[in-house]
């Protein structure tokens, strides 16, 4: 009965009800789209750095992360690799030997990060194969370097030119050699694109006099949401002489960026819902004033305050429910469509994005948490707002309400 009454009451002032429903609807749609695109962009960014370079987890000799020098290299051993690989969420484990070197053509010299990798592993692990712009993808035993596009440009290097590398090897030994440029690779992140140089691990170990040594084991995971759990499991299964770092620890600047972006996104969403809340509150104010007499009459003939309160509460619930359901329906459809068929843009933007190694699309996230967050917000807003009619009703006196 209260349901019927509440439902019909919604139609008393059709336009006001529709405006309120519409405000909830648009708030849900806008904040889902906003959050979805924002998160999508963040995921792309994180993938661009984490997925394409650092990977989600790394294992080092204890102390390496704080002091990244060759003095802190670790001896490679199969049982260590095996115990990391046996974790269910781990897909790849691959050693790297990296250090800072000077790269020179004879005419110009640039500092860069030289990374010794196992090309066959990293092809999958960081999708290095897909980054090749010119030349061939090196085999594990090849001699030569794969240089990032930006660095190649700075050094004015072309494919098959010779590059001179100078550095300090293991235990202070001087390292110097020259290698042919076999490959030019490109990275989305300018930081990576301007300063990276890859070569096969075996060649790097020889160059740095660090036979069978590595600075890190790069670990790739199946499910990036389980990174922290996997990190802990690896920690438990290997000797405490090693340290295990996750991507958030390795690149705190990206984490900060994600955090600040999502807090600015939160502010916008909050403002949106505050607007809606004001609208809903105004509706409640009008509604309670208009129905004063009727509520008094109902109390006089024997309707309890609790029943009146439930009726008014149901009315707000209907409005929120309909607005929220319709908003979710539309926004879930839009975000899923966008993520299945991403909008590709053309022209200048397209070129810019592709040069940076990103796809020229509007990325969208369809993380379920985006949707149920809206439901929670609407529910909280409705609940908080319903305090007003509850208070009003609890202070209601039948006679006073019926007096004009």
């Amino acid at each position: 009965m209260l349901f019927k009454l509440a439902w019909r009451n919604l139609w008393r002032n059709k336009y006001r009800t529709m405006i309120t429903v519409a405000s909830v609807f648009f708030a849900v749609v806008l904040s889902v789209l906003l959050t979805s695109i924002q998160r999508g962009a963040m995921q792309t960014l994180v993938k661009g750095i984490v997925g394409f370079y650092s990977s989600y987890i790394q294992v080092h000799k204890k102390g390496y992360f704080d002091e990244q020098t060759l003095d802190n290299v670790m001896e490679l051993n199969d049982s260590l690799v095996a115990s990391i690989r046996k974790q269910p969420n781990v897909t790849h484990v691959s050693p790297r030997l990296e250090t800072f070197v000077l790269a020179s053509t004879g005419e110009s010299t640039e500092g860069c990060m030289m990374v010794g990798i196992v090309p066959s592993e990293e092809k999958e692990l960081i999708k290095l194969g897909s980054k090749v712009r010119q030349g061939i993808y090196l085999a594990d035993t090849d001699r030569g370097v794969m240089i990032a596009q930006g660095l190649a440009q700075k050094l004015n290097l072309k494919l098959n030119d010779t590059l001179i590398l100078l550095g300090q090897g293991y235990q202070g030994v001087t390292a110097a050699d020259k290698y042919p440029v076999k490959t030019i690779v490109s990275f989305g992140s300018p930081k990576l694109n301007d300063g990276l140089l890859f070569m096969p691990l075996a060649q790097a170990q020889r160059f740095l006099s660090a036979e069978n040594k590595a600075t890190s084991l790069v670990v790739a995971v199946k499910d990036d949401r389980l990174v922290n759990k996997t990190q802990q499991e690896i920690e438990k299964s290997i000797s405490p002489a090693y340290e295990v770092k996750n991507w958030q620890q390795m690149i705190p600047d990206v984490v900060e960026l994600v955090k600040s972006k999502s807090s600015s996104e939160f502010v916008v969403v909050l403002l949106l819902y505050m607007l809606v809340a004001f609208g809903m509150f105004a509706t409640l104010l009008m509604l309670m004033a208009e129905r004063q007499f009727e509520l008094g009459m109902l109390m006089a003939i024997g309707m309890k305050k609790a029943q009146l309160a439930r009726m008014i509460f149901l009315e707000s619930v209907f409005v929120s429910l309909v607005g929220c359901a319709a908003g979710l329906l539309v926004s879930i459809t839009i975000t899923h469509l966008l993520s299945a068929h991403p909008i590709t843009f053309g022209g200048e933007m397209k070129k810019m994005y592709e040069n940076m190694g990103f796809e020229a699309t509007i990325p969208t996230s369809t993380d379920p948490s985006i949707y149920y967050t809206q439901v929670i917000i609407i529910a909280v807003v409705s609940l908080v707002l319903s305090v007003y009619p509850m208070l009003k009703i609890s202070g209601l006196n039948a006679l006073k309400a019926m007096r004009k």
Partner: protein
Amino acid sequence: MSNIVIDAINLNKTYNPDTIPVKAIDGVSLQMQRGEFAALVGPSGSGKTTLLNLLGGLDKPDSGSILINGTDITKLSENRLVDYRLHNIGFIFQAYNLVPVLTARENVEFIMLLQNIGKAEREQRVANLLNQVGLGDKMNVRPSQLSGGQQQRVAVARALASKPQFILADEPTANLDSHSASNLLDIMAMLNKEENMTFIFSTHDQRVIERARRVITLVDGKVTSDTGLVKTQPA
């Protein structure tokens, strides 16, 4: 069982006791028998509404007691009073008695829903009552499509639906033309007879007063004449 439905003893009610005191009810005592059809008359401001509100448990007297079938309703808490009104007192107000979003049938049924009466009984009673007040053909019509007189008849049906001890009507005809007013009185008189329902209604319409079998006159909050009890008054 005694036939006295209402026994009000020495009621007093003063509005605004702290600022500008208005003594609205001044030492009123009143008894009502089951089946009475009584008019409460008196000039505007004489305290008719105040007295009806006290008898209906909508307001409390400053002193005095109101026994309804032996229960002193002035001693009931606010919450108990709501329930008491629901089960024991029928109300007809001057206007806007009905819930605008409910049909005539639903308005009458509503009070029985509040009383948790079963569906079968509700439906039968609603149909009977609306037929009795002559609105059998308007059952599914909303109040806005009914005339003022028809709305008041629905209110009468609703007041009866809850099977109260008595029905209070504060100037039920004040907003009606004379034809509708007399029609409403016909229906109330008929229900008073057929259902033995006790009615007390306030009015200052002479034609309505003439229909009453008992006339209680209030002046300045005091009962100055009561034809039902004092039969010695000259004609």
